[in-house]
């Protein structure tokens, strides 16, 4: 995986604010991690430690949850997240072609982040827009029936 080089120190204050706005209940673990992920686009180690302390859980417990669920990332992600759906319908309609074009066009392969933290390309297992396969999502905007020749343009322009 291409490692991000421009990592800034995570904003502890921001993390603490998110944590303290959540109920102090062990059941909330996944929800809190999701909220931090949404804000920072990844889960820094400091966040996991803070969450563990707040909920009275061991660090290993929080770490296991953060690595079990696919929607969490422990490494920083790019400013623009490009999700390429690889559900069954997208697979047979050429999702791999989109990934190939992105790798060649913006230099970021599946699961990678560009060194300047601009792009992250993620593969997702079905976003439930199968009727429009193949689908790619740039940040939160959906693009259906994506032709591979347009993939790079969609990624760059959104």
């Amino acid at each position: 995986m291409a490692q991000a080089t421009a990592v800034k120190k995570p904003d502890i204050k921001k993390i603490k604010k998110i944590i303290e706005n959540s109920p102090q209940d062990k059941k909330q673990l996944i929800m809190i991690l999701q909220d931090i992920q949404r804000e920072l686009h990844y889960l820094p180690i400091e966040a996991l430690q803070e969450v563990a302390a707040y909920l009275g859980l061991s660090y290993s417990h929080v770490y296991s949850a953060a690595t079990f669920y696919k929607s969490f990332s422990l490494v920083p992600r790019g400013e623009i997240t490009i999700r390429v759906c690889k559900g069954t319908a997208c697979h047979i309609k050429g999702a791999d072609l989109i990934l190939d074009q992105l790798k060649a066009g913006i230099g970021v392969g599946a699961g990678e982040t560009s060194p300047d933290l601009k792009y992250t390309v993620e593969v997702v297992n079905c976003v439930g827009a199968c009727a429009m396969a193949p689908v790619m999502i740039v940040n939160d905007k959906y693009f259906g029936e994506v032709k591979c020749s347009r993939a790079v343009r969609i990624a760059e322009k959104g």
Partner: protein
Amino acid sequence: MKLDSIKKLDAWQKECRKKLDSQKTKVLVCLGPGCLAGGSDIILKEFENILKTKKIPGITLEAVKKTGCHGFCARGPMVVIEPAGIFYTKVKKTDVKDIIEKTLMKGEIIERLLYKNPDTEEIYKDWRKIPFYARQQRIALRNVGQIDPDEITDYIANGGYSALAKVLGTMKPRQVIEEVTKSGLRGRGGAGFPTGKKWATCAREVSDIRYVLCNGDEGDPGAFMDRCIMEGDPHTVLEGMIICAYAVGSTEGYMYVREEYPLAVVNLQKAIEDAYEHGLLGKNILGTDHSFDIKISRGGGAFVCGESSALMKSIAGEIGEPRAKYVRSVQKGLYDKPTVLNNVESYANIPEIINKGADWFASIGTKKSTGTKAFSLAGKVRNTGLIEVPMGVTLREIIFEIGGGVLDGREFKAVQTGGPSGGCLPASKLDLPVDFDTLTENGSMMGSGGMIIMDDRTCMVDVARYFLNFLVEESCGKCVPCREGLFQLHQLCLKVCNGEATEEDLALMERLSKTIVKASLCGLGQSGPNPFTSTAMYFRDEYMAHIKDHKCPGGVCKKLITYRVNDECNGCMACIRVCNSNAITGVKKQKHVIDEVKCDRCGACYAVCNFEAIDIV
């Protein structure tokens, strides 16, 4: 307004109906996932912008409604004008002005936007007559695409919460369970367990607290029915859950929704808030003794969390690993308390069963699989979209009459049902009736309702490899047969795709599959080899072609194919632009040439060529 009695609900319903009917013409803009990808949010905005400045008699801003998925995603974005049923397809922002000026103001129909049957050239003015819709019967999806999911009044006006009122006012919990049992409703999540039986078992358990959960973790790739229900008609799910809670004696419930469906979470949250505000959730619902709370729990993107015991662990904030089920979760589920877990679509059926009666529901479908089933049609089919049909219709009817046949007139090869736990059925099985038992007997399964159509350009070995890869990634890793077995099965399948496998490898794959099925802990592993076993059973010749002839008949497996330019090439250079390995040479208006050594077989040239000038050999 808090409704503290059933009478007040009745009065409010009349009021809502009256208000809705006062809008003579309604403009429904579909904001389902398919249409949204086509930009239907821009169309909705355009309607609002124009209507804000333009006064049209009889049409106000309120007449324009956003709805959930209308179903016919292949023709989206769509705008439907009711009650006439005028159905405008592939609408663009620039068409909005025309729709307002011609259709809304003058009553003219814009023919170019209507649906035209590509085979018969017939033009349809009323969407209900289009074959895609005419053959459907909608129970769970009755409101999806017809109402604004954000407006509780829309749901109420369409008879919403009247089933709840009937249950609370006139039925004992036992009677509710009897009614659901009599309806023959089976779980729509895939396994098809009788819903009434599940409720009865839970109600019998002695416990201080019982939980009612809704499984909205629609993880099967290729399935989006539950998403459309949660986004398009969230209240029906809530009503089903509240009725279930009354029947089993529960006061606390959770909606488990997968992270990938943010709009479903938003719409459900709004629905829950509205239900609380109107006294339909919370303490003393409609002034009765029944109290019930619902909270939303967001999933973390793990497929295994659709499994009951894993889902319950995930709600409890733990990692979602399943447990062995010596004791069923209806007895010991969430926090070890009796728990009813049903799928979104199952709950969506409940209000209609209560309103129209178990006998009515049982009269639809087949004897052992009653009612209807929602399916998402996707893949290489012409009419992709969301459908609901009575159980027992044949695959042929679904794919060729509703679905309109295979895309681009190619040859049908297989239909995949049931997601990664299901299987692929060949053309010889097209006349099978679609119900729980028939599909299982034939090596596939109903699953949650994803239906992917594949044509002759699909490689069945690659499809098996695709699903195995999916399952290897999604296996939680707790039990060895699933974690290691599926991994090895995937490796062997990869060997077949690369043309390196022997017949012994195939035999080994079959033996290994049997072990995985027998020894795995949960449904993920137990049904994991299905994609392989079903394709190996029905498409053995394709496996043999890979193994013996080192050929991929579908033209997919990269190591076994080469791309060549044929004489149709007119030198448009489109393929050269997408070729990332610089393997194609040629100048404008002259036939291009692919360098087989440089070519990495990505297939981009084949995908972009508009002249069928590239052959796969």
